């Protein structure tokens, strides 16, 4: 049974194939020919400086943002179509919106729209209990802190049994315990055959969690490899050092220190 399932997963289309994504906001180029592939069971981390195009890439995959050129295919369907939306769970950076709903109502609404069934509800309850969010189940989302609102969005998104999970700014505003739960939940989704694409500024988290790290800078993919390979290319002890070398900011610390000392 399990072997049959694995074979089916191998035959299933990749959760995400994006080619030559281009997006421009006025004179600002947000994405400039970005290629991304997320295979089943793989966790891919998008890292890059602020404004490098991580969120834009994720929004393009959800279909919430139109592209100027290029295409993204989610589980065999063009991004943004109803079939592609059914295949995506999206956890945004800023979980605003229907803030007057309670946590329970919000999670239930997301599960209902995705036709998640009883299994999804059990998963949501388990995640909420792991995060301690079940104690705030009847609280309105708008009354919670940003970290707790993000936890509510994580519960809603990671409870879904879909081929592709998108998590923007994965660890932003989360406490260490919530980060552990998030890590385990994403690993569980990957073990179940889903692809995970996350954007993060937390390089330690990316190094620990991601199978592949894609470095974006000014809308261009400057490197895409396993974290270990990235470190070894630059002979860097940590992914942070490798990241600074990839984005051309290797001497940043020395330069800032020098400039501030000169003032």
């Amino acid at each position: 049974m399990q072997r049959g399932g694995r074979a089916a997963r191998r035959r299933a289309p990749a959760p995400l194939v994006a080619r030559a994504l281009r997006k421009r906001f006025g004179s600002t180029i947000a994405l400039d020919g970005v290629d991304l592939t997320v295979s089943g069971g793989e966790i891919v981390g998008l890292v890059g400086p602020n404004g490098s195009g991580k969120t834009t890439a994720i929004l393009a995959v959800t279909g919430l943002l139109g592209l100027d050129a290029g295409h993204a295919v989610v589980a065999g369907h063009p991004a943004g179509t109803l079939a592609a939306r059914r295949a995506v769970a999206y956890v945004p950076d800023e979980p605003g919106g229907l803030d007057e709903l309670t946590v329970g109502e919000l999670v239930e609404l997301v599960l209902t729209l995705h036709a998640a069934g009883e299994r999804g509800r059990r998963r949501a309850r388990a995640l909420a209990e792991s995060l301690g969010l079940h104690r705030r189940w009847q609280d309105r989302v708008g009354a919670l802190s940003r970290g707790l609102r993000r936890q509510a969005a994580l519960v809603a998104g990671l409870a879904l049994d879909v081929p592709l999970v998108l998590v923007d700014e994965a660890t932003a505003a989360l406490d260490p315990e919530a980060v552990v739960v998030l890590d385990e939940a994403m690993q569980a989704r990957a073990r179940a055959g889903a692809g995970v694409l996350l954007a993060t500024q937390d390089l330690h988290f990316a190094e620990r969690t991601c199978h592949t790290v894609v470095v974006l800078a000014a809308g261009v993919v400057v490197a895409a490899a396993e974290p270990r390979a990235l470190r070894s290319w630059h002979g860097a002890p940590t992914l942070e050092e490798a990241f600074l070398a990839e984005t051309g900011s290797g001497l940043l610390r020395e330069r800032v220190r020098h400039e501030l000392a000169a003032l």
Partner: protein
Amino acid sequence: MSWPLSEACLRVEARRLAARACAAPLVAAVAACAWLGSSALALRAGSTAAHALSPLLLDLHVARVVVLSLALSASAAGAALGLTAPGITALGGTLAAAPVPPRVALAAVASARLTAVTLLAAPPLVAAVAPVAVAGPGGVLAGSALVAALCACAVAGASLAELALRLVRQRIIRRADAISAAIALSAAATCECAASGVAGSAPASVTALLASVAVGVLGARTWLDAALERPVAMPGRGRGARQRWRRILPVLESAALAVLLRAPDIRLALATGAGFGLVGMGAASVAGDAGSGLLLAAGVAALAAGLAPLSAGGRVELARWAWSAASPGRAAAGWAVASGLAMTAALAPVVLVAGVLGATMPAMLQSAHAAVVVGAAALVAGAFVPRRAAGLGDDAAALAAFVTVVALFLAGGEAARSRLAAFGVAEAIGMCLWLLLACTVAVGALRRRVRLA
């Protein structure tokens, strides 16, 4: 329609209204009284007007002017509602990306607000319009046709506003724009039929009724498509613009003006006011009455542009750390000047066109008087009930405060005018004194808001 999503949106809007009412029970009580009072007053005014107008409505020209005034207001209201309706991003990322067709999701978000606005606005409007239409030569059928035509005009206004937005942002979609223009023309033709119906033609009323349904359905669908494809504003060169203002205005006024003019909802309100004011002037000029046309057009423009002064109190609160550096009086004066300039930006083209079309000086002075009353009332209302652009509850409370203050201003103005006339003071001087008092009250109220912030 996705019922779970629509139901959630309705629940959220209801809770927002309730939360606003609980946060400010006094304002909520005043708003409820204003709502009930306005319905009763509208019924009385409608009944009075019905007696006066019913013989006049036999004249097609008069019926046309009445229907045109109402249709223009309905179109402006529709445009304002459509442009300020929240997009699907208001659902939050997770729900916006859910497997619901975008058109259905937008309908769910917009219908919640539309339902609430309709429930709030319909009773006083129907109370005012129905007696006039029913007492007229066309009877109940003409009244129904007029209400349907006004609904169609509101939808056409929303669709036309999307077309204007695409033109401004240079994102023309030929087919969609042609459909929007056709809907606007059809709405105008429907109004002509409704006017004939009000003047006594039963077949015209039936035609208006059927055409209104068709225009409404097609217009709603076109609006949904257009709103989904609404082009985003490209990042502007804000710094450059501010530098230009600073050459003319002091720093406080230029900063306040920048804050007001860069808020998308205020920009849209100003553009809507100017647009519908110009359309109204054009229509009045075609009807051959530029004088009363200016008052109507300037009134519509001032009401839409009044969002700028209405939002001033809330905007002060948003950046209280910045304004606390100046004295409250100075900051309040800066915001009042900036609000006035923003309103002037919307009114100036209307007055200019009216001047070209031959509007008289008394009509211009009356329009300026109306604009100052609206601006001052909006400043006072916004200072007491800050509009923070935080959803329907917030907007409804600010709007109720605005209506209440306008009513108080008008009643106070009328009492002051008769009292001053008894003392032998000329009407023009009395009017100026009253306006000066209104502006002083407005700046004083804003000063209080700055101090509290």
